[in-house]
């Protein structure tokens, strides 16, 4: 048979008319055989769908763990204007639930404050000495 020759030659035949991928013409044995094939095809479809959904869920879960900042920022992008929901873990969300903060809490700047710290013991107590240098441009 052609299909036998194809297998022996290393080729895998594609399904075509007359193959079992098509429903058989009606006949004495056709109903039972056709139901079995349809059942297998339905199961295959459900299996494929389950695999797709499962793979997608796993990808989303892994991406969420691997990209915390991106995830949190994505969550916040919408929240910037409208106050979105908090993202999971250490992500950040603009605060629909956060408190009101009216005073500046930090300064972003060039890092000019530097400190030298030395520690020694005097009369049984630890003395910590901090020598702080103001930014050099103050001197200039």
């Amino acid at each position, binding site marked *: 048979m052609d299909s036998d020759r194809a297998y022996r030659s290393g080729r895998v035949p594609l399904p075509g008319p007359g193959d079992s991928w098509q429903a058989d013409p009606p006949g004495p044995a056709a109903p039972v055989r056709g139901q079995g094939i349809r059942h297998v095809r339905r199961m295959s479809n459900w299996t494929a769908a389950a695999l797709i959904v499962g793979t997608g869920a796993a990808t989303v879960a892994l991406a969420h763990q691997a990209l915390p900042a*991106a995830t949190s920022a994505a969550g916040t992008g919408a929240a910037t204007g409208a106050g979105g929901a908090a993202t999971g873990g250490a992500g950040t969300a603009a605060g629909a639930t956060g408190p009101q903060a009216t005073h500046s809490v930090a300064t972003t700047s*060039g890092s*000019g404050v530097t400190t030298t710290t030395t520690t020694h013991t005097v009369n049984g107590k630890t*003395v910590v*000495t901090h020598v702080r240098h103001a930014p050099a441009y103050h001197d200039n």
Partner: protein
Amino acid sequence: MVMAMTMMTTTSMSELAGVTPWRRIAAGDDALAIAERDALGTSARVAVWPPADLGRACAAVDRVLDALDRQASRFRADSEITWLNHGGGGLFMLSDGLTEAVGVALAAARWTGGWVDPTVGDALISLGYDRDFAAIDQQRGEPPGVPVPAPGWDRVELHGPMLRLPPGVRLDLGATAKGVGSDRAAWAARSACGPPGGVLVSLGGDIAVAGTSPRDGWPVTVADGPDPARSAAPQLVRLPSGAVATSSVTCRQWRRGGQSLHHIVDPRTGLPAAGPWQTVSAAAATCADANAATTAAIVAGPRAEDWLATTGLPARLVARDGEVRYLGGWPAAADGATLPVPPGTHVYGGVRRPGGGR
């Protein structure tokens, strides 16, 4: 100008380990608590809500900063990067923490086309930045060394924890490590405190936030230097998420042989960057991204605006003549406006969430 203060304290493990204690800072808002201490040759600040979380947050930040210092400080004789830099090149197996920090530095170099380059170690040493910045002023009379262009970040290979460093190449992670530290510290502090709440961590002005921010975002002042009163055109903005960082040539200056130098080195020349910008600030999803972008912009000079536009990051550039430019949706002039922090990251995205002990 040098200010010195001495504090008598009781002995504690943190002090014996050379860690300065946290000082409580008046927040001005009852709903927040703020503390600050010296760290990494600069200052660390933690702001949290609810205020009861402050102790846990500071403890978590301590663990992160201690680990980062042991991994990436060029000025510690016992740090891992000092071990690398004195190894004469070769193949090294890194700790998880330094693997991540070097990986971020190389990603930043790739992203910025080499304007940020971790192989500037010898360039900085030649200019005189060979010790903690606090000790540099004592050498003002000596002339700077011959400029040493960076060998090039693309000569460094990192495969997992294995680092291949060519002979004669010394690393400096200054353009990214503080940002990495802020990101790690903010995430670690947030994880330590649990919901609800939020935390802001600033390392020398490189700021990362995690958790839920105060309404409309964390209020942050943008300035040239740590003292906004002495800065040109300070601005108040609100940071709802992610991070904001600033690079400036007005800080960390020193003099050698009558020449004024600063710490942002152009890898191509081995000299301090001499472009038109004195201060650049940027907001990003991570502080490592923001820090890399602002350093790159200082080095890029006249090409900074075009490059920043391609990144989509909100940025604020202050020229040496005082002119201020706003890019990427950074709010112009208006005080108290919210920074539109974009999602996504270029340099710190593929890493797992750091814990406090890394």
